[in-house]
């Protein structure tokens, strides 16, 4: 294995631990927004899509690259907007006055 690949594996292993630790205590109310927020974060694949969008010359490569960017962007934008909408429901509202 090249040293570059080993660094990548290190990063992967450490990220697994961070991923488990960072969200290990979540109230069940937030499970759906959390899933949706995590869903938006894996939209980072858009960066990968941009990097390979013009990797293959010719129409097929262009179409596939275009589709990859479309799907990645939909994932990012849709994911964050949906999460924001869900969370807007939790915003503190003025408490009702007891009658």
């Amino acid at each position: 294995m090249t040293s570059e690949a080993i660094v990548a594996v290190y990063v992967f292993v450490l990220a697994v631990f961070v991923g488990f630790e960072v969200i290990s205590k979540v109230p069940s109310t937030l499970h759906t927004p959390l899933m949706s927020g995590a869903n938006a974060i894996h939209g980072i694949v858009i960066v990968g899509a941009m990097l390979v969008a013009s990797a293959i010359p010719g129409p097929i490569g262009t179409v596939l690259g275009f589709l990859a960017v479309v799907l990645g962007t939909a994932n990012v934008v849709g994911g964050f907007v949906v999460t924001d909408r869900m969370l807007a429901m939790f915003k503190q509202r003025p408490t009702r006055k007891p009658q």
Partner: protein
Amino acid sequence: MTVATLIPVAYLIATVTFILGLKGLSSPTTAVLGNRIAATGMLIAVMATFFAADVQGGIPVILAGIAVGGIAGFVGARVVKMTAMPQMVALFNGAGGGAAALVAILEFSRQIDAGALEFGATLATLLALIIGGVSFSGSAVAFGKLQGIITPKAFRYSGQQLVTGGIAAATALLSLVVLAGAVAGSVPVEPMLLIAIITLLALAFGVALVMPIGGADMPVVISLLNAYTGLAVAMAGFTLNNQLLIVAGTLVGASGTILTRLMSKAMNRSLGNVLFGAFGAAPAGGAAAATAGDDGRSIRSISAEDAAILLGYAQNVIVVPGYGLAVAQAQHNVRELADLLESKGITVRYAIHPVAGRMPGHMNVLLAEANIPYDKLFDMEQINPEFPRADVALVIGANDVTNPAARSNPGSPIYGMPILDVDKAQNIIVIKRSMKPGFAGIDNDLYLDPKTAMLFGDAKEAVGKVVQELKRAA
């Protein structure tokens, strides 16, 4: 120093925002901020990528793609009803999986053209392609099931395991051929043909994986596919040697795994049971034994007027909201009803089953939308001991999560699933459109209980009528 050398710095910032974002999303007070921090990091990463050397040839294509995908994602996310949130998450998740698979295909093709196939990178590319493909088609099926395009029932046929196993084996075999080719320096068959076949097999496997799973289990499946997509993105990161993709994808893979485990636990079933278990495919005896008339019990139906009287004389009411309430958008009417009852000095509380509304937390979101105070919502563990003291349990559009068969009938497909002990209340009013079985496709013994009265109708209309009757009586 050129702008391009700053790209890794931008990626590092994005990585940190994703970790902070996930951490923020774990607590109610910081969730909104967390989501926006992560979104900002995403924007920084995308902006920086525009300066990368590899991107320069494709800027028009990328801009066009961002425009189309951005509009589709934004409009989809804005117009979707809160009730359709689970399938929307499935759809966006599938998009991410599809993007990862396409990145893998393009990168593989580039490596072949460069004559630089290498074992590690090829393995990562294949994994990104297969996992991304499974996530794409699996999410599409999950979307179809929740949207009602595909039957939400578990779809099974004889020899199913054989077919699913066959697809998996063929995928693995062809992948080994490609890997062996990468090691040997040349792939025996046209490599892109092999990749095309592997892609189709991965898509078929995703369909085969999700079709046999019943609609009631879809939240668990979506959560699992979310983790899959994260993993696929991480693998694409290995292929491209991009740390940002590796970290972000892995974070989601890990968090999705935890969430999936929490959800299966809420339903008291192992993940294996969800994926290969028998929801909906239970022996016919389990369901048939519970049909009306078998043992002389029958269903009692009441009018909105009677329901209003029953509620009006109660001291202690527990509302059990379910998906039916969500579909009918009845949360505001329920709030009105609760306000009326409270003005008469009646205690009103809400019992929230962990998977009420199809996804953990989904029902809380809907009730919060109607301004129902958070401190009136109770988890299953908190509220179950209270049911025997409740004068009326008002079940609105909930079904499987109230089925006592989960406690008492080992033959039932939902046996062992924790349920709300609605049947222990003094009186039970069930608002339901018809006697149609719930999402798990089985009958509910609760409706045959002598204490239970059925108020048939759309949740919104039925609750509205009860409110009118209560107002008239007041």
